[in-house]
């Protein structure tokens, strides 16, 4: 393996060695951004309307725009003339390792902020609240958690939801078959094509998938939730307080301003690309509170 190390060293040392050095007072991500003049945003394929690909296969979305605001704030903070925003696709399964190993600096999507994950990554202020539910074809007549008994259920691998449904399955002995899918679109596809009976996910994502499907009327979302409403946050590397401070200040200012409300309305109450569907999800009372008093707490009870 010696030679492979040597080659890797050669391959990797070149960009590292040519990067300008300076700005001693900075550390972590801010230093890296200053040195390289670039920040990398991780985006999702199909987390509608948070972070997904539009008709031209370019990332768009509510969380994606929040990330661009954070990038602007970083640029202003570092007094850079130019900041290149690089994009890297992530899946639910890859996002946490990629944040940890430095491939991406900000993860913009629909990542649930919980205590477990805070051991791996940091989260900025909450940008949405959502509970776990499931979607199924109406003709199957599924509505409650116990209706899933003995069914084939799909969820996206690497999400809190697949963990919750596994725990419920074990605790209540429902005997479900739980299949992991790579991303939300693939999971929904399993329900659409009849490969699975139900798709367990955050209700807002399910609503967006149903609205964007060929036959929105054919699907129903369960009335019983499988979790309390949990907060979504933009994910960044842990133990990087200066960077988090910039991101927190930028998101807090955005959420409290009329611009934050407008941004919310743009993605949740108006027609969105690629097919001009409208999710019709006006600002709920807990969401109004969450935006008025920005918080990065992982505790659902705090909202």
């Amino acid at each position, binding site marked *: 393996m010696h030679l492979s190390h040597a080659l890797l060293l050669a391959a*990797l040392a070149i960009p*590292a060695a040519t990067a300008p050095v300076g700005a001693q007072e900075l550390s972590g991500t801010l230093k890296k951004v200053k040195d390289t003049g670039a920040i990398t945003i991780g985006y999702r394929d199909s987390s509608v309307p948070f972070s997904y690909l539009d008709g031209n*296969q370019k990332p768009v979305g509510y969380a994606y725009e929040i990330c661009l605001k954070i990038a602007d704030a970083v640029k202003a903070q570092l007094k850079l003339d130019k900041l290149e925003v690089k994009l890297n696709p992530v899946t639910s399964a*890859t996002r946490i390792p990629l944040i940890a*190993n*430095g*491939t991406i600096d900000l993860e913009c999507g629909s990542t649930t902020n919980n205590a477990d994950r805070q051991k791996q990554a940091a989260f900025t202020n909450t940008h949405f609240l959502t509970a776990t539910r499931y979607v199924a074809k109406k003709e199957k007549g599924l509505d409650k958690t116990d209706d899933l008994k003995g069914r084939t259920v799909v969820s996206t691998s690497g999400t809190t939801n697949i963990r919750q449904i596994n725990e419920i399955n074990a605790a209540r002995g429902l005997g479900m078959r739980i299949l992991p899918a790579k991303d939300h679109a693939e999971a929904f596809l399993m329900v659409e094509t009849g490969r699975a009976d139900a798709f367990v996910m955050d209700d807002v994502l399910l609503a967006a998938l149903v609205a964007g499907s060929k036959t929105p009327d054919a699907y129903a979302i369960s009335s019983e939730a499988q979790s309390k409403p949990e907060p979504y946050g933009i994910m960044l590397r842990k133990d990087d307080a200066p960077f988090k401070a910039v991101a927190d200040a930028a998101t807090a200012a955005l959420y409290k301003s009329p611009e934050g409300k407008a941004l919310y309305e743009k993605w949740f109450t108006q027609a969105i690309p690629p097919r001009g569907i409208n999710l019709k999800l006006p600002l709920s009372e807990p969401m109004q509170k969450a935006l008025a008093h920005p918080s990065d707490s992982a505790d659902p009870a705090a909202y």
Partner: protein
Amino acid sequence: MFANFDFSVIGASLPYLFGQGMVFTLTLTALAATGGIVFGTLLAMMRLSSIPGLTHAAKLYVELMRSLPLVLVIFWFYFLVPYIGAWATGSATPIQVGAFSSALITFTLFEAAYFAEIMRAGIQSIPRGQTAAARALGMSYAQTMRLVVLPQALRNMLPLLLTQTIVLFQDTSLVYVLSLTDFLGAASKVAQRDGRLVEMYLFAALVYFAVCFTASLLVRRLQARTAIVR
């Protein structure tokens, strides 16, 4: 039976499928094949050298890579390379490696093990008398390899190396598991966006088949022309 299918979705997405997807696939294939052949040749020479440390290291590397599924190796490297980079450069924080570079490093290192075995067979196919003759002429080991053995070995092995490159071209489709936009990734993104799985996957299969089949026919013709008759 194709009554419900809409093949116009393919036409509409051609620029994306080829302009982005196929370009990614071909670039990755070309760069990884080049890197893989260079590193693979080195590994083969290490393995055939008479220095026990080098021989064993190369053997271990080749056997390890050939024992693991590519999917697992892709995950390994995507998560691990930034840490190795940090370790190699003495940096305190992981080095940022983009998705494409990461895929490139993975495929180069993985395919090198397969290229190494082809090269080893190629080098061993050169009669020992030639090496002995070169040494008798006063050539160094490096000169013997560069001027006598490798040119002939490469000629013998060219069809196999190209066939392995076709395999590599097919293998790059596995970056799908990382959500990167190679040709198959692009096809599946369109398929999922428009709910047109059948059309897109059939089309992807057709394109892969056309490319690989044509390439393998060309390799066979080349093989007939370059074979050294002994």
